[in-house]
Structure formats: structure tokens, C-alpha cells
């Protein structure tokens, strides 16, 4: 140990360090401060032993307490599922049309269906289920395959033109561009346009009526109201999936477009399909 150096002016001991004639005074930390500092070191070591801390190549040390944030998340999810299961179990055992008779189940199903809809359905049907050309609006009262809750359930479960599912809804309109002359297609379009309003050219429409009776009435029925058995759209209402102008109708007659909807039964499971059906049915257009 070197000899103690005392600063002449202040009378305080110096550390012995000197820069350009200026000496550093030895002004120690308060004792409590130092002890607090030591305590934090001890605490850190203990923390490192108790909790996961040191990164290894593929993992980290696990710590004595066995704490894991992933395990906590798993536990939380399991708890949430257990909470939901009391409702989901009852929904699973119940025919879909009976759910609305139980207010608590109805509320749960609408909320769950809404959440499932936001994940799986909004990409085509829109966030408000309002649809877009080619994708049906689920708020209105026009239903290609029926709008009661069982029909909605079946459509969601098995899809439309979903070839992976044998129970899928299937309808196919012939390509009339191959079967009819362009003039005839215009005539039919004029007639069909007139079914839900006044035709633009009554003469064309009159000619189209004959063609309609021969070619179209089998599926779309004599008065144009369609048939949900075959998924044949109602042509006599104000709802048009592919557009309701005369040109758009002619286009759809000549080269029909067919939408495809996946069957969701395998992917989402029965209780979720039931919740979705209840939710869609609750949107205001259910029959």
C-alpha cells in the first residue's frame, strides 16, 4: 500500500490519481449505496439460477424454477379452451337449428361465428359479409342454396363445387355461346332482364321468352324464380351475383362463371361450422 495522500486545501484524502496537476479526491459512495449495489449483484446471480438465462446453442438453461413463457401461453390457451368447452360441447351435441333457443348458446355462437368468419370468410365475402360480384352478399334475402339455418350449415360444411367433398353443392350452367347464336343470346338476356323490371326492347324479349322456355326454364323454373334444389339463381329478383345489366346478363348466359367455395367441415370442425351458420343466419337475411 502506498502512503495516504491528503489534499492540502480540502483536507480530504486523494486517490493518488493526477491529471495536469489536478488530483482526484477520494469521495467514497455512501455505504448504503454500495451495499445496495452488492445486493443487486447477488440478486442477479440468484435470478440467473432460478430462471432461464444463459443461451446455449439450441436452447437456454432452464432454471431451477422451471419457468417457461411458452408453457405459460400453452396453459392459458388450455384454460381458455376449457372455459369454452362447456359451450362447444353443448353446441356439438345439438342440431344447429336448436341453438337459437338457448340465449347463452346463441350469444356464444354468434360471437364465435363472427370471429371464425373474420378469419376464414372475409377474404371472399367481405368484412361485413356484403359480398362483391361473384361472391354472394350474405346480408340479403336471396339464397342460391337456401337460407334456412340447416341449408346454410350444409353449404358451409361441404362448400360449393368443392370437388374434394362428395356432398358438395354442385350446379353447372352450360356455355350457351356454343349452343345459341349471339342474336338469340341477346334475346334471352332481354327477356331475363325483363323478369325483374321492364325489358329494354319488348320485341327482343318476346323472342327470348320462347328460347327461355326451351333452354332455361328447366332449372330456373317457368317464372324465372330459380330453384334452390339445383342452386339455380332466382332471375326474377333484384339480386344479381354477376351484375344485373342486360350486357352482364348476356355475358353470363354466353359464358357462365361459376364460383367455388371450399367445404370447411374438415378444416374447422363441426362446432365451428355450427357457430358460423348461426352467425350468418343472424345477419338479417336468414329465412
Amino acid at each position, binding site marked *: 500500500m502506498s502512503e495516504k495522500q491528503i489534499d492540502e486545501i480540502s483536507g480530504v484524502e486523494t486517490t493518488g490519481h493526477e491529471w495536469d496537476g489536478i488530483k482526484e479526491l477520494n469521495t467514497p459512495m455512501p455505504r448504503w449505496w454500495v451495499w445496495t449495489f452488492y445486493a443487486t449483484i447477488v440478486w442477479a446471480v440468484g435470478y440467473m439460477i432460478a430462471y432461464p438465462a444463459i443461451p446455449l446453442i439450441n436452447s437456454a438453461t432452464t432454471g431451477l424454477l422451471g419457468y417457461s413463457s411458452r408453457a405459460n401461453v400453452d396453459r392459458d390457451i388450455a384454460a381458455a379452451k376449457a372455459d369454452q368447452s362447456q359451450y362447444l360441447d353443448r353446441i356439438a351435441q345439438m342440431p344447429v337449428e336448436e341453438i337459437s333457443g338457448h340465449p347463452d348458446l346463441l350469444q356464444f355462437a354468434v360471437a364465435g361465428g363472427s370471429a371464425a368468419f373474420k378469419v376464414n370468410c372475409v377474404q371472399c365475402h367481405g368484412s361485413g359479409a356484403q359480398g362483391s360480384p361473384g361472391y354472394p352478399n350474405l346480408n340479403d*334475402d*336471396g339464397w342460391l342454396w337456401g337460407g334456412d339455418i340447416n341449408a346454410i350449415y350444409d353449404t358451409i360444411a361441404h362448400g360449393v363445387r368443392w370437388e374434394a367433398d362428395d356432398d358438395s353443392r354442385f350446379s353447372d350452367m352450360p356455355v350457351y355461346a356454343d349452343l345459341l347464336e349471339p342474336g338469340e343470346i341477346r334475346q334471352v338476356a332481354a327477356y331475363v332482364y325483363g323478369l325483374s323490371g321492364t325489358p329494354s326492347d319488348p320485341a327482343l324479349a318476346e323472342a327470348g321468352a320462347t328460347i327461355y322456355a326451351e333452354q332455361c326454364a328447366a332449372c330456373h323454373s317457368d317464372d324465372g324464380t330459380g330453384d334452390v334444389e339445383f342452386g339455380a339463381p332466382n332471375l326474377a329478383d333484384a339480386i344479381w351475383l354477376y351484375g344485373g345489366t342486360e350486357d352482364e346478363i348476356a355475358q353470363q348466359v354466353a359464358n357462365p362463371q361459376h364460383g367455388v367455395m371450399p367445404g370447411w367441415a374438415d378444416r374447422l370442425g363441426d362446432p365451428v361450422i355450427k357457430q358460423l351458420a348461426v352467425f350468418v343466419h343472424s345477419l338479417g337475411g336468414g329465412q
Partner: protein
Amino acid sequence: MTDTRSQSTNVEQFDAEAVNAAWARKPLYEARKKIFPKRASGQFRRFKWLIMLVTLGIYYLTPWLRWDRGPFAPDQAVLVDIANRRFYFFFIEIWPQEFFFVAGLLVMAGLGLFLVTTAVGRAWCGYTCPQTVWVDLFLVVERAIEGERNQRMKLDAAPWSFNKVAKRVSKHAIWLMIAVATGGAWIFYFADAPTLLVNFVTGNSQPIAYITVAILTATTYVFGGLLREQVCTYMCPWPRIQAAMLDENSLVVTYNDWRGEPRSRHAKKAKAEGKVVGDCVDCNACVVVCPMGIDIRDGQQLECITCALCIDACDAVMDKLNKPRGLIAYATLSEYADNMSLATAGGTEPINPSLVRNADGSFLDKVQHFNWKILLRFRTVLYFSIWALVGIGLLVALGARDRLGVNVLHDRNPQYVTLSDGSIRNGYTVKLLNMIAKPRVISVSIEGLPGATMAITGIDQPEGRSFAIPVEPDRLRNLKVYIKQPPELVEPGKTAFKIIAEDKNSNEKDVYNATFDAPEDK
């Protein structure tokens, strides 16, 4: 090491001393010096007892007042029902959206504080501040157990003995009991008091109740019992703000040194020697009663809470000496300045009491005395006017407020739906508010929008333009409403119409101006 400066012989020498020289250095924080206020008696002390009784009475007893509101609402006169978001105050029930009433009351409280301060100085601090009231209460306990000032000082200085421990333990125990009662009273404002008391004692209350009581117990005990005047001096911002609210015409506790100085402990002897003496006999009675530990004779001080106990103490002494009261008194600074000017011959001489006195000891007519008319001046009138205006506004709003309401949220996604027959349908969320504690049937109808009909989900009634909806007492009812207009009557774009909620029995009515959306190109 060599110091080049010291080698010079012609340097200037300073007669200076380091402010923070080692020998002069003091600890930054000095320990608190204990204050042992002596009990005062007099008119202000009596007034303070009265205020203490009234304020503590209001605080502890209010939750226990009952108020019959019928079977559907609580019968506690003052209740802040946070769980159900209702605030009950006697005959008034406030819903969350009416919280501006509470805001208005807070504005009134603020303005009222300004008004009182401008008129009569720090009356709030001296008489009604909870800190003052509870410290006073704690001092009552301390005096009852440890005795008057001298005994308390002696006990404090004495070594620990059984007697001292017993006194201290019982004092702190009673303080803690008061603190628990204080914290306990607070929670009764937030739930039915009798039920909560039973649940609290039997351990069935929610943790928040126990936590609240624990925190308020701790703060009451620490602030009122241990910290006392330090809260006012170091923690409270109000003395700083309050100084700005005072002016030369506000009442403050003032030592009238134009009359008291020069003070003398041996006035008779000094007088006999031909010296000038004032009325102050330097008995320190004003100092020993001060709960803030100040000497009012030092002049206006931030620490002074104008509790006027020094006035009581001094008046008692003046009575004994057969001198007029008011050596320490509530006075305005302008009045004080006038008298001071008189006593010092316009500031040219030291204070000479004979300049303000007649030969018989009575005061000259020129001496200013407090005139109550001074309370009526621009600032006080202004504060009072604004205060009263806010109050009248609140009363008018209270009288005119609706007890029935309708709020409408228009569905935006989708904005409208075209139905198969070409009708346009809009969806709405309609909230019906029944703000009285009785069940009501509220009629919901639409006005305007020709041909439109309405359907309400969950209400088993055919489509129409008017529905009768039962709403539970004091509740809000949410309805999903679909309004549909036939195609031939639909106007393109937005159409304004009204959704009306009405109680046919009481003729109360609320109208919501809604819009109906339809395609632009229809």
C-alpha cells in the same frame, strides 16, 4: 508541486470566507424538530371545534343516510355505484354521460376556493382542510393521553419506561383506530354501507375494499399523526398557489407590530425607565399554540394556515393585561400598512406606539380597523358571479335533463343491402335508455322515410313503423333494428329521417336524427 501564484508578492488579498467551508458545512437534511402545540381556547378555537364536528360528521355519517328510490334502485342517499356506473345523490341519479354535473361541481369547488381565499384568506387551510381537521383530531388524542404541552415535552425527553411505552402504544393504537375508521368510511360511499360493513368484518369483501382501507389507513395515520405540519409545508402545493390568490384586501392573520413593538418582557420597568414599550409582552403564548411551529410575529409566512389559534392565545393575554384585544388579529395588508405608516411617522422613525394612541391608551381615530365592506370588491364579485353562473347552469341542466333517451348507431358495413324484391334495407343498433327506477314501455317509431317498415331482432312482432319495447328500470336496452324501404320509394343517396323513442304514459320523448343509405345510382 510548486504554486507559482504564491511566489508573487503583489497579489490582492480578499477578506472572504468560503460559504461551504468545511467547518460551516451542515447536513443537507436536518431532523424534524417536534412541535408540541398547547391547547388554545377562545372564539376561534370554539369555531374550529364546531367545524371539526360538522365536517367529520358529514364524512363519517353520510353513507349511512337512506333514501327510498323504490324497489329497483339502491336506497343509499349518497352512493357511487361504479360497478353499475350510476351515481346517486339524494333525489338525483347521474348516468355516466351526465358526469358533467360532477365536473361542474368540481369547477364550483375550485371557484369557491378562489372566492373564499380572496375574501377571507386561507380559511380553507385553517378550518376545513382534511389535513387540518385530522391533525386536530389526532392532537386531541395526544393531549388526552400524554397531557398538555409541558408534560408531552417531558415525556418525549424522558428515557423509555413502562409508563412511556404504555402511553405511546395507546396513543398510536387510538390513532390507528381513527385511521381505520377514516379509510373504512371512504369505501361505504361505493357500496351499500350496512352490507359492506358486514362483509368487510366477516372477510367476504372484495380485495379492493381491503386495499383501499389499508392505503387510506396508512395515509391518514402517517399524514395526520406523524407528518402533521410537514404535509402543509413541504407536500401541499396549495400554499404556493394560495399566495397568488391573496391581495392586499384579503384577510390574513397579522401581528400588529405597529402596536406591539418594541416588545418587552418587563414593560413596567422599561416604562419607568422612560423607554418606549409596545403591547407585546413577549410571552410566546402565540408561539406555543401554533400547530405549524411558527412565530406569527415574524410576519406573513408560507407555513401559516391562518387557523387563528395565536389570536385566541394573544387575546387571552391581552384580557389579563387589561389591554384591547387584537394585537394579533385578522387584518388586511392594506389596513396593516396604513397603521404601520402611522406608527412610524410615514416610515421615517422606528415604531412608536404612542403615535397611534391617545393619552388614555385608546387608539387614535386614524387607526384603520377592518371594514366588512371590503369583502365586496371587483375580484370577489367576479368570482362569486362566475361561481353562481356555473351553479345556476347546473341547476337548469338538472331541471331540463331527459330521463329517457335514444341513441342510434348506423351499420356501416354494409351500408345498405338490396333485397330480392329490390327493397333497400339499412341496419341500426338502437339503444334505449330508461333512466328512471321504474320499468317502462318505450315506443320506438320512425318518422319520415315514406313506406319504410322496421323489424327488430328478437321482438316477436310483424314489421311496422312503431314498436312497443319494454325496458327494465334504470337500464339501457340494445336493439338490432332493420329498416326497409320499398324500391319505388327509395331516394338515391342519403335520406334523413327520425327515430323516435317515446313514453306514452309520461309523454317523455327523445328524437334521433338518423340517415338512410341507398345506392347513389338507383
